[in-house]
Every structure is written in C-alpha cells, then in structure tokens.
C-alpha cells in the first residue's frame, strides 16, 4: 500500500427499499485505496457497481448508504453536504460507465458535453472550454477533433464513445477514477485499445483507479490489487500477482472456471456456490 490512503471505506452498506422489503446490495465492506489500481471483481448482483456509486453518493432514490467511515483525502464523504459532494464529483473523483450510447446525452453534441464537464469546475467561458475539449479529444487519440466535437452520441462507434467518456471525465483532472465495466460493451479489439488509453492516462496523471468488472483476467492484468465480491460482501482481497494463490473457495472456483489455452481440454467445472458465503464472514480464509 503506497503512502497515505486516498480513499478509506469502512463497513459500507447500501440498501434499497422495495415493495417486497429491504434489499441489501452491499453488506459491510472495508477497503483502502492509495495511489494504486484496485480492481473489484464480482458477478451480477455482487454489489460491485453499487460500491462505486456509493463512493460518489449517487445511489438512486430509494437507496440508503451507511458506513462507519467513508473518507476521501481526509474529506468525510458520508456526511458532506450535497454542495460539497458536487464540488468533489468530476473535480476530484470521476466515473466512467459501461455503454456510451446510454451514458451520453443523446440530444447534445459530444463536444458540448465535454466542454460542460470543464466549465462546471472552472470559471472558463464557452470558447476556452471548447478549446480545452478539443485538446482533450486529441489526448484521447481521436482524429479530426473538430468534426467529432459536433457529432451526436448515436453517430459515434462504441470505442470512440468510450474515449469521449474518458475525455469528459478526465478533463477536470480528478485524483481518483472509478471505471464501472468500461469495456464490457465493446468489441474485443476495441477493448484493448480503450484499455491501453486508460492505462496511459491513469499513469500519466498519477491517478488512483478503481476498476469494476466481472472479468477476472482483465482485472488481474490491469490492477495492482483485487477485491473479490459476492453477495454484497468481500470474499477475498489479494495482490493481482498473487491471484493464483487465492484461498477463498469462491475465488478458486472463479479461477477454475476460466478456460486456459494450455490447460486440460476436459469439461469446465461449474462453480458450486456455498450458501455460507452469503453469511457475514462466510468462508473467509
């Protein structure tokens, strides 16, 4: 763990009030993040996305966030006023999401949206914001930035859309980036390009990164540490390099399910779920 923790989370809980009762998406997780890359891996419903949203206090309507501690750079995120949170969002912590077709406003040009992200946290005027946005488009390796500036989200491909997202979220120069399934909606070849871009940007700017994904291999190759989540809890925390030394049966199960090119060609095992994992402290080694 490198130096001062950028983000400290202790006993985070996220729950939703539904007509069928209270649903707990995140059931008390602890972790810290320094100037490093943390991966959160889990299947659908494990609570990984909600964790990311909770950090930014963007849980929708009928959801509630509770924690013993949730601090970013000394700022108490849990009790900060909404105004304070707004100055943090985008400016110090940013988030990119899965599908640019949905996460970009369909009736505004992509350039305007990027410029807007800049203007929120600076006193810049329209022209300056546009120039910054154009510069940012170049930084994310988009050719013909002037042309792309005036396009609408439905006119750009998936890969380009994610670059635009990255441009938009990094233009205010945040310290921490949360990437929620950033490549899941992309073709495989495009995935690699976007990941490479992300890698560069995060490294150049010295940012912290939380990469949320269901793809264990991706997270292992991209991040320094990995959190494995299941049923709203953390099953195991380990260094990415030490992944194959994982001890929790769930993690081992996940690893065993991944096909290996040089492994045996028999049937892939099916992950057997132990209901004990859903209990507090269940099965943790």
């Amino acid at each position, binding site marked *: 763990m490198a130096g001062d923790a950028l983000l400290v989370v202790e006993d985070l809980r996220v729950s939703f009030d539904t007509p069928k009762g209270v649903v707990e998406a995140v059931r008390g997780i602890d972790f810290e993040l320094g100037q490093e890359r943390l991966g959160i891996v889990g299947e659908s419903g494990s609570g990984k996305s909600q964790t990311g949203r909770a950090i930014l206090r963007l849980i929708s309507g009928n959801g509630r966030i509770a924690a013993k501690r949730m601090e970013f750079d000394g700022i108490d995120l849990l009790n900060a006023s909404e105004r304070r949170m707004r100055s943090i969002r*985008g400016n110090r912590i940013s988030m990119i999401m899965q599908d640019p077709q949905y996460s*970009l*406003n369909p*009736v505004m040009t992509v350039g305007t949206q990027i410029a807007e992200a800049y203007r929120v946290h600076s006193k810049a005027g329209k022209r300056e914001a546009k120039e910054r946005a154009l510069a940012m488009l170049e930084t994310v390796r988009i050719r013909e930035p002037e042309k792309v500036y005036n396009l609408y989200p439905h006119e750009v491909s998936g890969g380009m859309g994610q670059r635009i997202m990255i441009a938009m979220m990094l233009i205010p120069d945040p310290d921490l980036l949360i990437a929620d399934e950033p490549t899941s909606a992309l073709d495989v070849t495009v995935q690699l*390009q976007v990941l490479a871009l992300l890698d560069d940007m995060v490294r150049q700017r010295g940012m912290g990164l939380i990469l949320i994904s269901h793809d264990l291999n991706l997270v292992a190759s991209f991040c320094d540490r990995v959190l494995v989540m299941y049923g709203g809890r953390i099953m195991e925390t380990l260094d990415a390099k030490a992944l194959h030394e994982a001890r929790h049966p769930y993690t081992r199960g996940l690893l065993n399910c991944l096909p290996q090119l040089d492994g045996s060609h028999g049937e892939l095992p099916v992950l057997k779920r132990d209901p004990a994992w859903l209990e507090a402290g269940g099965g943790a080694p």
Partner: protein
Amino acid sequence: MVGGNSTKVSGAGESPSRHPLATRFASFTKAVAKPANVLFTILITFVGLTAITFIIGRVMPADPVLAIVGDRASKDVYEAMYLKLGLDKPLLQQYWIYLTNVVQGDFGKSIMTTRPVLDDLITYFPATLELASVATLVGILVGVPMGVAAAVRQGRLTDHIVRIIGLFGYSVPIFWLGLVALLIFYAKLGWLPGPGRIEVYYDGIVAPTTGFILIDSAMQGEWEIFRNAVSHLILPSAMLATFALAYIARMTRSFMLDQLNQEYIITARVKGLSETAVIWRHAFRNVLIQLITIIGLTYASLLEGSVLTETIFAWPGIGQYITKSLFNADMNAVIGGTVVVGIGFVGINMLSDVLYRLVDPRARR
C-alpha cells in the same frame, strides 16, 4: 435504426467502410424519399377523410338531396340538386364529383345562412383557432412546469397534487365545467362577462384582417376592444386549458420520469452539475422533443373540444356552426365543417411530426 452503421464515424485508425459516393447517394435518396413519403401519407389520409365524409353525407342519409336542399325546397330545386350530385350515376362517379368539388373548396350552400359553406367556414374558423391557441398556450405554460415539478418530487405532496389536478382535468366534462364556471363567475360573482366572443356593441368595429380579434384589435390600436375580447376569452379558454394542462402535465411527468432514470443523468451528476442543470439542461431537453408531438395532439383535441365549449359560451366558431347546422339538418354545412376540422386535425399532426424530425438529432438524416 436510424443512421445505419455506414454513417457512423469510426475511431482512431479505422477507415470509413463505404465509398464516399455511395454514402452521398444513399443520403440523397433518403432525403427525397422522406417528403415523398409524407406527401403520400397526406394524400391517402385526405382521400380517406373525403371518402368517409362522402359516405356520411351521401350514402348514409335516407334522402341525401333532402338533407342538402331542405324540406322547403321546390321540386325544381330538388331535381336540379339531384342531377348536380350525380345521384343517377354510379357511386364511384358520385364520389369523384364530390372529391373534385371539395378540392376546389366547393362545399355547396348552407341552408341556414344561404351562403356558400366555404364562406361560412372562413368566417367562423378563426374564432375557434383563437380559442384553441390561447387555451393550448395556457396549457403549456401551466402544464409543463407542473409535470416537471411532479416528476422531480415523485411520490411527494407536489406529485400527488399534480396528479389529482391532472385526473380532474381529463375526467371532467368540459361543457359541464363551463356551465358551473358561468354560474359562479358570471351569475353569482359577476367577475367575468357572460357568453359571447365580444360585447355586442363592439361587434364589427374591428376590421377582421386575421380573424383573430386579439391580433386585429391590437394592430388597430383598439385597446378597449382588446381588453373586452380578453375578458370574454378567459372563461372558455380556461375550460379548454383545464383539459390541455391535465394532459400536458401528465405526459411531461411521464417523460420526465423516464428521462430521469436514464444513464446519462447519472453521468451528468457525476460531472458535478447542479440539480437544476441536470433537470433542465439535460433531462428536459429530451422531454421537450417528445412534447412536440403531445402539443400537436393537444391542439388538435382542443379544436374538437371547442364544439361543446362554443355551444355553452355562444362562441361564434366552427363548433357552434356545425352543431347549429346539425339541428337545421343542413348536411352541406355539417360535412363542410367536418372536412375542414378533419383537415386541420391531420394538418396539425403532420406538422408536429415534421417538426419532431427536424428537432430530434436521432431522427435526422
């Protein structure tokens, strides 16, 4: 899917997948096809409208000639009309006679006013348009903020109030509401004038340039008449506006709720935008586009809702014209009025459709 893959701009290092000339040709044919398509639809709808009114006017009545000339007409007149309508000829030919007449604006003569129906329609239609326009405007100005407020505060008091007002607005029989309003504001309280478009002694002073008293009197500087016209407009337009704002508020709320659940709203919040900016600059912009269609529908509905309102308020518009003609068994006038309102209806819907395509970036190209 609008805008197929060939028109998408690709990322770094990817080359366009089609020869530029092919893309140009494709978009050209698309551009030409659209108005042709629209024209075709207008034509078909017009034919359909005339066919239906033809059936109503000539085929359904027991004696269509009698319905047109009235029971006081002489035998000669009756027979002349019989031949003119071509009732001795096959049905399709009758329809053709009818259609060609309608296209030229010949709806025959009204028994009631003894003028050509077309002249009557030109005289009376603006009054209805004025009423419907004012009511729609009020409906938008009141209904849209209501809908937005209800969506943003979903489940809370504001939302419930808006929904109840909305429920009332499109459940209430407008003609009854008009009666009750007249009872309270005119008969009991005396705050507002009674039925009629304008005080009798003002009638005819303002030259009808546009037919809209508000515009004409303002243009000619007749401010007392203007004020009088406004005071007469208040009740009937308020009645129509009740329905309009109920519908608009409900649809705005519905659209707004849909938009607020979208991913891009989360993105906007992640950027650190204020709630106001999120609601109005992002969500509302998407809602506005959809509202165009709704406003068109509302305006069209008000055109026909005016039928009953005009009866209550003795408003000299096309609704009253049609109902009076109805009671006079004046088929020409009824059919003429129906065709004109029908055209107005179709025209408005078409206009809003075209406007929608212009404004929504996803529907362009």
